[in-house]
């Protein structure tokens, strides 16, 4: 098996799947052509991420990193969440096969984009 237990757990029992209808921010990355596409929805209260949901089209690693980043983000301030790096997501999952590292990039990018979307809307 190419994935560790934690990755498999997040892939087979992903946390926070779905969308948020009245989301405060939405971040979309990737495209179906390259085989990975993620949308992240966030709810924000007093600059804190109170809820995060995701929808992902992609491989096991893409789904697991999406799930992981939602868990990592919930409860954090926007500022803290913006500091979550691609490597943090992979590390939190206990590592990914090298060829799959780009998936963790996508997950962190999608969360950052959702936060940026929220900040833009607020202005």
């Amino acid at each position, binding site marked *: 098996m190419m994935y560790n237990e934690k990755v498999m757990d997040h892939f087979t029992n992903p946390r926070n799947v779905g969308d948020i209808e009245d989301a405060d921010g939405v971040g979309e990355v990737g495209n*179906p*052509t390259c085989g990975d596409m993620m949308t992240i929805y966030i709810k924000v209260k007093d600059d804190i991420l109170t809820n995060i949901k995701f929808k992902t089209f992609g491989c096991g690693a893409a789904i697991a990193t999406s799930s992981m980043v939602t868990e990592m983000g919930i409860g954090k301030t926007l500022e803290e969440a913006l500091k979550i790096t691609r490597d943090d997501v992979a590390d939190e999952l206990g590592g990914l096969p090298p060829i799959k590292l780009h998936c963790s990039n996508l997950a962190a990018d999608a969360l950052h984009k959702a936060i940026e979307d929220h900040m833009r809307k607020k202005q």
Partner: protein
Amino acid sequence: MKPIYMDHGSTTAVDPDVVRAMTPYFTEIFGNASSLHSYGEQATVGLNASRQIVASAIGAHPDEIIFTSGGTESDNLAIKGIAYRNQDRGRHIITSNIEHPAVLNTCAYLEKHGFEVTYVPVNDRGLLDVESVKEAVRDDTILITVMHANNEIGTIQPIEEICILARDKGIYVHTDAVQSIGKVPIDVNRIGVDLLSISSHKIYGPKGVGALYIRKGTNIEAISHGGSHERGIRAGTENISGIVGFARAMELAQARFDGDCEHLRSLRDRMIGNILKSIDHSYLNGDLEQRLVNNVNIRFSYVEGEAMLLLLNNKGIAVSTGSACSSKSLKPSHVLEALGLAPEEMHGSLRITLGRENTEAEADRVVEALIEIIGKLRAMSPLA
């Protein structure tokens, strides 16, 4: 629950009968067929009998069979051997754009060494048009190499017609029959090919052994050099136990041919029918008629292949996919690409290749699992 193996296009388990045939050749009849003493003689008896069996299974003469280490080596020997030996007549080779890497990469290698290769494209059902092969022929064409049946989508090419057009022009024809042997009737004289590759491990034989049929009178050069084994065309002490196992597997494939084909076709059609009926936005890749009896290749919109494969694996079901995410190169399958599919369609393709031991109950269990898994993944997909 009992695991279900439906990846016979990748490889098969060795038949117990084959193991029994091989066993004495490891410890008792271990001689080198080149030796003059009785150990060597016994090995030679096994080797000759195996050559006879493999030859007669495809309608060939024993002298026309060269044992190799498998499909890859057979393809290399056929293509490079013909190219090197016949380059004074021309340096042009014709093939298709859906060949196995053993053929495609051998052709690409020859391109770097002064040969020209035309890759004739298949149509959107994965079939070659004989007319377009004909149009690709030039005065300096020396070889046409087109696979008999494709390993991913199972399409069967009109190799007989290609042989007819080549014969008038004195062009050699090679076909990779690794996937078709045991599933499509093969008689080298009825087909009319000059060279034909087969491999043992796709037909319940051991890995690392195969054969190249070379029609008598064919000008071919050795590509590896050493002793005078295999008429000097393929040096190296023969893998007798493997060859004996391969021959036994060929014998079994021949004896069980009608039953196998009927069984596989009925399972295949049941699965294709049930999947297309019960899962929306699912489509068959490759032609339905000109298709291997054991190949089911279906694309599911909005989901990705590796994810499907892993979830199936969790349920003890083994299949394969042409998705980019599952390949080491992160490139989608060149075969699905050749069908003109959009990238997102290629990502959601699954290949199920059935085998002798699969049952109707297993086929139904796999369809049930697919319904559940695709439902789950689509609920997660931003595209659905």
